[in-house]
């Protein structure tokens, strides 16, 4: 009987202390609502296009946070207006053994609209999953990464013989593009081909604008693609 009582006391002590001892997991764990995440992906609610992001920035969407996950050098070379650099490893972090949570430098709030940007979109998509697991709901990643921004916002093009509908849409995007210092172009396919032959297929680039901060390094980013 005394042994049973001693074991019961030991178990009670172990249980009570456990309530204050934290998580037993060595790694950081968070819970991902897989069904919800899959539905968001299927409905394409996980990403936005570069033009949509440009509209949000232009319209000064409230509570918008644009998180650039690239390296400091890449960020210094070129970044989107209103964007802030947070390396992916700094986005998450917690005390050893504790539950996973947002890194102290990230300072994101669940109510904010968060747009994640990386070079090609893969890192941003991965960070989207991780933020979903941390309970952030208004998170999007830039679908085609920085390349899409450069192509669709900074250098939108349209064929000279495009349909009236496409031209109307292009005019809307062109206005946005110019707001960011971009250079919309109408392409004459024949002239473009001869120009490419003449320039050895080099991508033409306009001079940097103050808002976009376009530099020659961007050409490197653009050529590298997604």
């Amino acid at each position, binding site marked *: 009987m005394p042994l049973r009582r001693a074991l019961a006391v030991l*178990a009670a002590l172990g249980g009570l202390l456990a*309530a204050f001892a934290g998580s*037993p997991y060595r790694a950081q764990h968070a819970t991902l609502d897989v069904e919800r995440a899959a539905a968001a992906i299927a409905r394409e609610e996980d990403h936005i296009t570069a033009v949509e992001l440009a509209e949000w920035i232009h319209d000064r969407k409230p509570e918008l946070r644009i998180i650039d996950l690239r390296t400091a050098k890449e960020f210094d070379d070129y970044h989107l207006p209103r964007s802030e650099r947070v390396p992916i490893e700094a986005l998450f972090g917690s005390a050893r053994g504790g539950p996973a949570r947002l890194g102290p430098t990230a300072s994101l709030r669940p109510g904010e609209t968060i747009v994640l940007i990386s070079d090609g979109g893969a890192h941003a998509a991965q960070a989207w999953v991780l933020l979903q697991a941390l309970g952030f709901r208004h998170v999007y990643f830039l679908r085609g990464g920085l390349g899409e921004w450069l192509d669709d916002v900074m250098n939108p093009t349209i064929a000279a013989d495009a349909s009236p509908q496409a031209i109307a849409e292009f005019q809307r995007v062109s206005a946005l593009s110019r707001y960011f210092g971009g250079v919309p172009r109408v392409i004459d396919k024949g002239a473009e081909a001869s120009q490419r032959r003449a320039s050895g297929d080099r991508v033409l680039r306009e001079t940097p604008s103050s808002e976009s901060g376009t530099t020659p390094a961007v050409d490197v980013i653009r050529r590298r693609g997604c």
Partner: protein
Amino acid sequence: MNTAVAPLFELGAFGPRGALVVAVAIGIAFGWALERAGLGNARKLAAQFYLTDLTVFKVMFSAIVTAMLGAYWLSRLGVLDLSRVYVPETYLLPQLAGGLLFGAGFVIAGLCPGTSCVAAATGRGDGAGVMIGMFCGVLGTGLAFGPLRHFYDSTARGALTLPQILRIPYGVAVCAVVVMALVAFRFAERLERR
């Protein structure tokens, strides 16, 4: 730095052959403990369902609490890497149906798979009978697995744990289970004394 030494097999302390030897040793120790607790006796097990002898409940629940506290504290002290311990996946409806079938078999036979092995090892005929029945059941299920497959894979919920379901910290779940066990033991002893 990872200083964990367990799970031993997962962390390469021994290979598959060593794991089999360890599994046999643990199985024998488990059987011995069941026998010492009197769980090789079908009458004792059946008494569980009449609420006159709750030994099975007490043995099983104390084993759960011991394993849970051991896993928790060993992990908290850095000896065990809990993330490498396999958590079986939940399949809600198939497991509910399996649980009911298992319970019905337990009541009818007075033995469960583990205790039937213990009973058979101690020379009890009912134990051997239950083991034969159990293997027939396994064989029948295997043969009928094709049509059962859809149901078998239905209502998958992934590897669920109490802290996940209840959305409470892990340690609080451990504490709650211990408190529940101690209260249940007290209640069980009162029932037995009635």
